[in-house]
């Protein structure tokens, strides 16, 4: 019904005549007759805006909106300040393309430059790119960055997110390289296994911090093992945790990557998210994707441009190390606004609240008979519990509008963010207690 074509039928006819054609299908005279769609598409008739809105709203209504989400595992339900939602919906930002024309794109270019700076500050690294698709692809791109002629094997911790491992595996399989998964022991990367797997052909070791089970790894120690072997060290870190946690730079990482979704992006059934990537000056030119640099125009005014473009596919073609073109620019801007709204103190505060509330829930759950933590040691805002009747527990929580922990091997993987109040957590504990007490 609506196709957003503004020209009136009369205008279209006149335009066609101006071209010297009689029928609209004359525009398609190069298309072989036998493949032209004679009967049109087998699709429903178009709708008005009112009807389309109704139809899509009806779909949204078939989803369940939980009051409390205590599940993370790669998608984190944080509070998004109102200003963070509002600014990226400005039409100039929303509807622009990649800023190829610097003279009319300074706003976007400067926002990316600011984003790059904030990612550097958060991770302690020297250089950030303008973003890649998500945390999983960021890890995959990092593994590609590390490969040279002598070293092609990538190692990844088995305690990384399964989607990250599988995405890195796919990129490696594509390029004809090997990926080996380092075994997990007691919820953490097994250092002895890592030591054995670090052979001279290993290009990089990828560690997730905190890991998939929420636990803090011995990031410095594991990284040192990789470096002793002459391999690069890649850390994938939760950016909210970095509000208080030791930075990848402090842990000795050569490349810092991660899922930027917690920085003000809605969980949105999985996307769009944000892959951040940062590295040391030494490896700057190996970074894939767009990078914005500062320079000047002919009158000496500060100007921002897409820089170091000769690394990229549109110039290097089959010799480019990545094919990335579109990235997640608007998500990167959203993350910058989030970090500006939180500030240095707010970033620490949100991290501490996540950590404190997760610790509180873990402690309270463990007061219930039959509930215990699956793993010892420090966790950030996710932890695994062992308990009986997990199906019933989750069903009871669900009924109360609470999305409980994710069933994983060994138990339930819970996540607590600053959004959950003490009352929410107490309610959760009492429901669990009730189910298990039956």
């Amino acid at each position, binding site marked *: 019904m609506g196709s957003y074509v503004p020209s009136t039928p009369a205008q279209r006819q006149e335009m066609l005549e101006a071209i010297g054609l009689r029928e609209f299908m004359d525009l398609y005279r190069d298309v072989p007759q036998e493949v032209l769609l004679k009967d049109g598409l087998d699709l429903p008739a178009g709708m008005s805006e009112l009807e389309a809105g109704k139809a899509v709203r009806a779909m949204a209504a078939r989803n369940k909106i939980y009051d409390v989400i205590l599940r993370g595992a790669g998608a984190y339900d944080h509070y998004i300040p109102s200003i963070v939602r509002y600014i990226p919906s400005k039409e100039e930002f929303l509807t622009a393309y990649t800023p190829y024309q610097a003279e009319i794109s300074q706003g976007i270019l*400067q926002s990316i430059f600011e984003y790059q700076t904030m990612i550097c500050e958060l991770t302690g690294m020297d250089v950030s790119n303008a973003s890649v698709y998500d945390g999983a692809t960021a890890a995959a791109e990092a593994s590609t960055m590390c490969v040279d002629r002598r070293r092609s094997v990538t190692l990844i911790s088995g305690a990384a997110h399964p989607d990250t491992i599988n995405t890195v595996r796919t990129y490696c399989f594509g390029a004809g390289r090997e990926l080996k998964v380092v075994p997990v022991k007691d919820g953490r990367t097994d250092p002895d296994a890592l030591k054995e797997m670090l052979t001279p052909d290993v290009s990089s070791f990828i560690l997730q911090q905190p890991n998939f089970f929420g636990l803090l790894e011995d990031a410095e120690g594991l990284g040192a093992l990789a470096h002793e072997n002459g391999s690069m060290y890649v850390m994938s870190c939760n950016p909210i945790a970095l509000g208080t946690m030791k930075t990848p730079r402090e842990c000795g990482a050569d490349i810092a990557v991660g899922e930027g979704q917690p920085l003000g992006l809605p969980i949105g059934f999985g996307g769009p998210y944000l892959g951040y990537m940062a590295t040391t000056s030494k490896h700057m030119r190996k970074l894939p994707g767009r990078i914005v640099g500062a320079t000047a125009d002919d009158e000496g005014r500060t100007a921002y441009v897409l820089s170091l473009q000769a690394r990229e596919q549109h110039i290097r073609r089959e010799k480019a190390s990545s094919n990335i073109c579109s990235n*997640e620019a608007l998500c990167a801007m959203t993350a910058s606004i989030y970090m500006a709204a939180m500030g240095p103190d707010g970033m620490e505060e949100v991290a501490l609240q996540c950590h404190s509330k997760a610790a509180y829930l873990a402690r309270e759950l463990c007061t219930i008979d039959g509930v215990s933590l699956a793993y010892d040691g420090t966790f950030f805002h996710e932890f695994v519990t062992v308990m009986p009747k997990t199906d019933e527990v989750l069903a009871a929580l669900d009924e109360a509008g609470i999305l409980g922990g994710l069933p994983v091997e060994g138990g339930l993987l819970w996540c607590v963010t600053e959004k959950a109040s003490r009352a929410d957590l107490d309610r959760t504990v009492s429901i669990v207690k009730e189910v298990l007490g039956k």
Partner: protein
Amino acid sequence: MKLIFDKSVKGRRLTILPECDVERELLPEGERRAKKPLLPEMSETDISRHYTELCKQVHGVNDGFYPLGSCTMKYNPRINEEMAALPGFAGIHPLAPADAVKGCMEVLDTAASYLCEISGMDEMTFQPAAGAHGEFTGVMLIKQYHVSRGDTKRTKIIVPDSAHGTNPATAAMCGYEVVNIDSAPDGCVDLDALKAALGDDTAGLMLTNPNTVGIFDENILEITRLVHEAGGLCYYDGANLNAVMGVVRPGDMGFDCIHMNLHKTFSTPHGGGGPGAGAVGCKEFLKEFMPASALLSLMKGDAAEHIQVRSFMGNFLVVVRALTYLLMLGREGVPEASINAVLNANYLMQKIKGTFTPAFDRICMHEFVLDVADFKKATGLSALDVAKSLIDYGMHPPTMYFPLIVHEALMVEPTETESRETLDWAADVFRKLYQLGFDDPEYMHASPHGTPIGRPDEVRAARNPVLRWVPEG
């Protein structure tokens, strides 16, 4: 314009979070960062004004004509944004139980059925996050197909020299040797060059049709037949799908798999460089090779190994936008969009003729290429100079210096959402500039004049990279 960091005032903050209502716990010593990140400290007023200032230095589709060839900068309907922001989508966890996400699955299934019908494919995945990412996924389908048959001698992907740079880069990422074949003078596939390149080492062909100069390759059935005869598969780069929706389907042209850019063809906004979404479709026989989330497979008890190109199920909220658009267009609106995209391109090309020269003087598809070489000979002004001059008239320049087979190329794609009045205005601007090139070439060479900055020194940016702000002192 000041950087956000230069506007920071120590101690200034927003009130976002409540007091922590449980006992505060710090990470153990030794696990904490040494100092806080140097993020800006702002009020909400500061933040709001900063970004408002930035947005005044951006040209989006809503600011004016944006004929950026190959990027399909059509209008992005507001209803799409409203739908994507619904809490029933934005607040849904990707790992919520199946019962709780029925609406999300309905979005994906409905969008898939529309896109399968439009592309002539049997199966669709939304996991890829962008066009190039879709290419990667598609070529990985081809790779898995050959590997599964034990056909490991197929090591080459054929790519025409007129292709987007992502095509050869993608093939290389998938471990293939890239065979670049010369195009015929009209940018179409040179059948002899194709035949010479085909062999039992051919894994597949990557092709855009209409091609990158905006011409529909009339030999398309012969091309896909030849590739199939050699045992290869055909990949359709959907970058130019906006020309042919509802008129002809890639699946019927003989393609085995395809990606579509939801952020081009299906009206979702490009956000200054993303997020996009690259839906990938394939024929039935490739279905088993489609990507899946390892974690979601685990939860479903699906033990089969799948490739995976990113986490979960892709840029879902982008799919919501595209679906809203598709529902509105429906059976009649989809071809209407394409026919008018082609009409607009031909009309604009016709009205520019007589000044700047079309590289191919024939009916084009949804875009056309101007060859500025003659103009350059006469005036000394390049395609870059023309592009920069257009800015002063409030027009976003066309794509410059692409495709590579036309040396002084300006690639113009008006899209169907521009009115005749806008096209008449744009043609006038091109004609004026053509004359200006002869009257005052120095002025044009120094353009743009009315922008916050003049042409930036890109050599300096590349030689001395300054890629982040550093505090003074």
